[in-house]
């Protein structure tokens, strides 16, 4: 397989060697985002995050003008791959980015490798992605990074038994696996692991089963966007009344949807790397400019990942003094450290994996709106699955 890659590389390297000369003054960034379908809210946040970054930092860096080209991934992996190919071959982009879902990032991997173009992963969260191409760099976060903190927190705060309920797809199964692993290492016990079909928004039967098992806590993971539906059904079943704590990763109490969930989610504890409420000058500036250029929309974890993605690209170009050579850009991205709106961020120099800060947050009402208010910082977590 490696021989195949090398052969392809040798062939395309020759042809590509002439490309950078054509695009000297402009550096193009091709983003493949989910702009339609189930994931459209993610795409909107990503696009808005990029817009906020460009509004704040301008479109020039290291003497180069940055041009962003956005394509709709249509939710289909093979179409995304074709779009990536066309962005590289026709638009001559120097950096690819975006990727809402894991299969889409995975499909683009071979293109990044073959064309030697860095691909910045903003949302897709399965750990294994960055290992698939040496040109992948992640600025988002991974499943274990999100689930370990809440498992630790639960074990430390009197939760002895738990039931997990996740959507039945790869990230959901990952969340279930990592929660169970970490929680049981800390002495807890997972009574049952329930999986609801991804396509069906009806969680009633699963929630009833979870309630009947009488655990100390119910751990939830659904793709961001389904959180509101799930929480409505959770509230209907009155878990609080039966002394069952409801805990989750931050996707469930997504900033984008939190306000529409109503007061019944007050007090819910989740773990994530970003809350629009994060108290830092960087975040205040980010939220302000984000709302200003995006019709007063509230940024969520997708927006901040897009913002950081652009930041990494700008920083890498500064390091290479404007040289948009793919290998040099990837090398420059490795080991970057900066102060993100979420807190201190780092790209692992060895694995090209994001090392985001992590927080335990509780839903509270602030200035008339619901926010995930951070009350405990667990510090940065390296993804444990990379060797």
């Amino acid at each position, binding site marked *: 397989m490696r021989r195949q890659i090398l052969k392809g590389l040798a062939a395309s390297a020759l042809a590509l060697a002439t490309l950078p000369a054509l695009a000297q003054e402009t550096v193009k960034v091709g983003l493949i985002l989910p702009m339609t379908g189930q994931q459209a809210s993610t795409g909107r946040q990503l696009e808005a995050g990029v817009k906020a970054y460009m509004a704040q930092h301008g479109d020039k860096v290291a003497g180069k003008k940055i041009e962003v080209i956005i394509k709709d991934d249509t939710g289909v992996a093979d179409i995304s791959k*074709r779009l990536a190919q066309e962005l590289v071959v026709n638009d001559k982009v120097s950096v690819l980015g975006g990727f809402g879902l894991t299969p889409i990032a995975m*499909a683009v991997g071979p293109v990044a490798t073959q064309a030697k173009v860095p691909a910045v992963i903003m949302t897709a969260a399965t750990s294994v992605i960055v290992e698939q191409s040496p040109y992948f760099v992640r600025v988002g976060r991974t499943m274990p990074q999100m689930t370990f903190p809440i498992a630790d927190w639960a074990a430390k705060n009197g939760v002895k038994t738990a039931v997990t309920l996740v959507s039945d797809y790869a990230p959901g199964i990952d969340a279930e696996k990592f929660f169970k692993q970490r929680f049981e290492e800390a002495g807890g016990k997972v009574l049952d692991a329930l999986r609801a079909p991804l396509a069906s928004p009806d969680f009633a039967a699963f929630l009833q089963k979870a309630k009947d098992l009488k655990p100390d806590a119910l751990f939830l993971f659904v793709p961001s966007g389904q959180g509101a539906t799930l929480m409505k059904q959770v509230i209907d079943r009155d878990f609080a009344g039966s002394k069952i704590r409801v805990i989750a990763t931050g996707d469930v109490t997504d900033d984008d949807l939190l306000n529409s969930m109503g007061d019944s989610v007050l007090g819910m504890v989740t773990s994530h790397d970003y809350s629009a409420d994060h108290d830092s000058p960087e975040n205040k500036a980010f939220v302000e400019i984000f709302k200003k250029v995006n019709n007063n929309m509230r940024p969520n974890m997708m927006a901040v990942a897009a913002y950081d993605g652009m930041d990494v690209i700008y920083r890498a170009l500064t390091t290479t003094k404007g040289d948009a050579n793919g290998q040099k850009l990837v090398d420059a991205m490795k080991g970057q450290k900066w102060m993100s709106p979420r807190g201190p961020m780092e790209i692992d120099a060895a694995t090209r994996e994001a090392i985001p800060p992590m927080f335990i947050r509780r839903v509270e009402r602030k200035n008339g709106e619901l926010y995930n208010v951070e009350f405990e910082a667990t510090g940065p977590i390296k993804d444990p699955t990379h060797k």
Partner: protein
Amino acid sequence: MSMTQPTKPVNDAGARLLSGARWRWYEVLFWVAAIALFFVFGDFIPGIPTRLMLLSEIISLGLLALSIDLVLGYAGIVTLGQGAFFGLGAYVAGLMAKNGMGAFPLSDPLLGLLAAAAVSGAAGFVTSFLVLRGSDLTRLMVTLGVALILAELANQMRWLTGGADGLQGVMSSPILGIWDFDLWGHTAYVYSLVVLFVCFWLSRRIVHSTFGLSLKAIKGNALRARAIGVPVNARLVAIYTLAAAIAGIAGALLAQTTQSASPDMIAFHRSADALLILVFGGAGYLYGGLIGAVLFRVMQDVIGNITLQYWQFWLGLVLVLLVLFVRGGVIGLMEGWWNRLTRKGDAP
């Protein structure tokens, strides 16, 4: 360009029925245009971007629509499950490429195509007996059900298919060990076009044979066809199996040219898209699926570049208007114009 007839027509009616087998000038024009596209959009002319990857994708989609045309347009079987065979073919070809580890000949794309056709054809044969039972609505449900079952299997069998993340590490080896798949899509397009032509030629021979005519008779009235001695069930099983094999080849093409296989290749929207494309292009002509696929994808691409978020709205609107006002799809429309132009009042 006329082909030799398989059987000598014994009377005028027979001659008229089989006369469709002759290659017409506009058919030749169609295939010449397909070859010309390679030179226009192959990055040979400065200023015109490479669109060969898009065109390869269109070929795969068009081939899937062609396979639906065989069962719907000729045999009258309403199906929403052709995507199942498409996805199955994609996974088979993907797994062959992956496990062949780039070693000739095991991971050769042509072998992958044959394997995909065989597996999908077998699946088509087995499920065809379900399709024989019941009428249109039942068939719609049964084919949809089979597709959903296969899609869920692909999602659950993570050890084999990679689950929701898709199959990882698919590496197509060079065709016959000579032509490697490049970033520009040169190999992909030529390869796809050749495969399309072979499948099309085969389908064309079949629908213009006496076998094909008996399918039309079944579509017209299954009871009467049985009364004049057409073995209805055997014919339907045969065409359904063949169409499944062709759908498998279409899926394999997509998996090989994009070097990926993921659950959305087997998802419901593939079947629905292809059916839509066929209705849009015109069912029962063989070319309907191909022309529909070209127009559908090109419109999607053009509108998508104008409005990133709302292209589905505009595309939907265009499709609704076309289906409302243009009976028989795009080909039906062109046929109508042609007949008026040449003052041929009624169809042959």
